[in-house]
């Protein structure tokens, strides 16, 4: 256990991440609306010690009722559309919706048209766009820290 913790401490030292710039936070809720699992892998990676989104006050929460931001990945299949809308409606206002990855942005979609409900923009008001196939953890961190800063400036 101590060896593991030492390895992690060494990585943190080597990376020398910049200190957080704000004292606020955003609670994130993820909904996979038909992704290839790439976006999920990279969102999970954004929590690893190399990126450590938690240090900026960016935390994934278990329920949409606790969330400020809805991170929507995938092509928005017709089969996932109802569950996506339920999750959105459960969120308290004000709420942000992020189109996470190229599929959610409606770019380069593959599949049958009748299985797709359309780009996220046609279904929910999109506030944040995170392009990439999938977006890299660096791009995810930059977009979410940007949203956090914008929000704390707006207050």
């Amino acid at each position: 256990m101590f060896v593991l913790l030492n390895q992690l401490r060494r990585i943190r030292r080597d990376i020398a991440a910049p200190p957080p710039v704000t004292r606020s936070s955003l609670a994130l809720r993820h909904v996979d609306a038909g992704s290839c699992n790439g976006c999920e892998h990279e969102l999970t990676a954004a929590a690893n010690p190399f990126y450590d989104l938690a240090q900026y006050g960016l935390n994934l929460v278990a329920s949409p009722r606790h969330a400020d931001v809805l991170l929507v990945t995938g092509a928005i299949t017709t089969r996932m559309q109802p569950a996506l809308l339920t999750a959105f409606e459960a969120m308290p206002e004000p709420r942000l919706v992020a189109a996470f990855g190229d599929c959610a942005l409606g770019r380069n979609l593959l599949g049958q048209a009748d299985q797709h409900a359309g780009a996220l923009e046609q279904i929910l008001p999109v506030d944040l766009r995170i392009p990439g196939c999938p977006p890299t953890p660096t791009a995810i961190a930059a977009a979410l820290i940007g949203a956090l800063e914008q929000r704390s400036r707006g207050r």
Partner: protein
Amino acid sequence: MTARRAEPLAVTPVAAKGWRTACLAAHRNGERFEGLFATTGDGKTVALRALFSSPAKTRLIVCEDSDRRVETLVDAIPAAAWDEREAHDLRGVCFVGHEPMRPLLDHDAPLAAWTVPTIGHDTHEVAVGPVHAGVIESGHFRFHVVGERVLYLDVRLFYKRRGLEAAAVGHPLATSLAYAQRACAACAVSNSVAYAQACEQALGLAPDRELSRSRTLLLELERVYNHLHDISAICAGVGFAAGTMAYATMKERAQRLNEALTGHRFLFHTVRVGASDQTLDAETVARARGELRELRAEHASAWRQLQFTASLQARLDGVGILTRDDANRLGAVGPAARAAGIDRDLRSESPHLWYHRFEPVTAPGAAGDVASRTVQRALELDPSFTILDQLLAAPLTPGRTRTDFDPAEIGVGRVESPRGATICVIERNEGRLRTMHLRTGSYANWPALAHATAGNLLPEFPLINKSFELCYACADR
């Protein structure tokens, strides 16, 4: 060394009446069931295909006009259950004797149609998903429980169905590879190589040395980052954060290496039909070799620590047991099957890839529980690191194919993905795709996961689920 001459696919045509007899004959002959599906060319005639394999040969049993009615195989081959349910939902094929025929893809069916009825004192259902509490793919689980004990689990997937196979049809063979890749990011290379091999078999092509080296390199890079991810996920399932993060950092390093070598963290756009463009110069392969040796040492050290972490180990033993018999019966594949003692790995029967005298490894004791599946991942990392070290001993140049045997209309590709045997069957019309069927290791293993969950406590499910770590995307397609 030149690649061995490929064994062309053995195609056995049968009439609808002879379907069951032919399939059961193959089964009794010791050939392993590897998938069944229905296709339609004109929208009216429904054809059936069943794939069986032994180390010596791959055999496709085809029934060109099923009249949508054949006898079922599930009583003799339970591994065909999901395949038959899918063919029923997609193409309306009636499998006589498959009772009750519960919907698999059809989400409009009423609850009573797709759940298994459980009766008795205090039994109740717990419905979870399709949206889950963590960063997890979408799917619905319906647990039938008494108190906290799971009696039965109904897995209802296909929320992420994008219709990739149908949409791939009609494009040039080379273009349609993108659809196989899109099925799943974590198995992108495996699915793409299975598709490319299927096309090449149909075109009568065999890869040269550089092409098989390139693909094997990509497949093993994919396996390494996936296995590191899986160990991290199992630690997360127990709530052991130090282990989760230690393995997440190793996975990150592996993905950064992917990017350095191929330009993409998930190795996208690296596989082509009939060729490979990949070049790696001497300096790049030397650097990659060094990084992999460091990763290997770090894994060895972290793994030793995990073995001596009592709070982790206490949660793994005896949980989510999949016995060897059940694994065989349900057609489990990959690390999940090997952890149950089945020493089968498609890498030992892949003449078109760079695996020489590959011997499958199985976890000692092979109890088929979460502990064995965890050990299995750690054990498999070693041969993968060794293979990568050998492959990276020399620079890599572009690879090509040569004509090796007579072309055909049908081709089959079989690849050992990080989750097990992934099968791709394609049919072509000249240079264009006529049908595609992708049956991934995840698809094969979902019924085994549901079976292994029964009898356990409901709160153990996330851990059991992570010990299989199946993709939803490449089952849904």
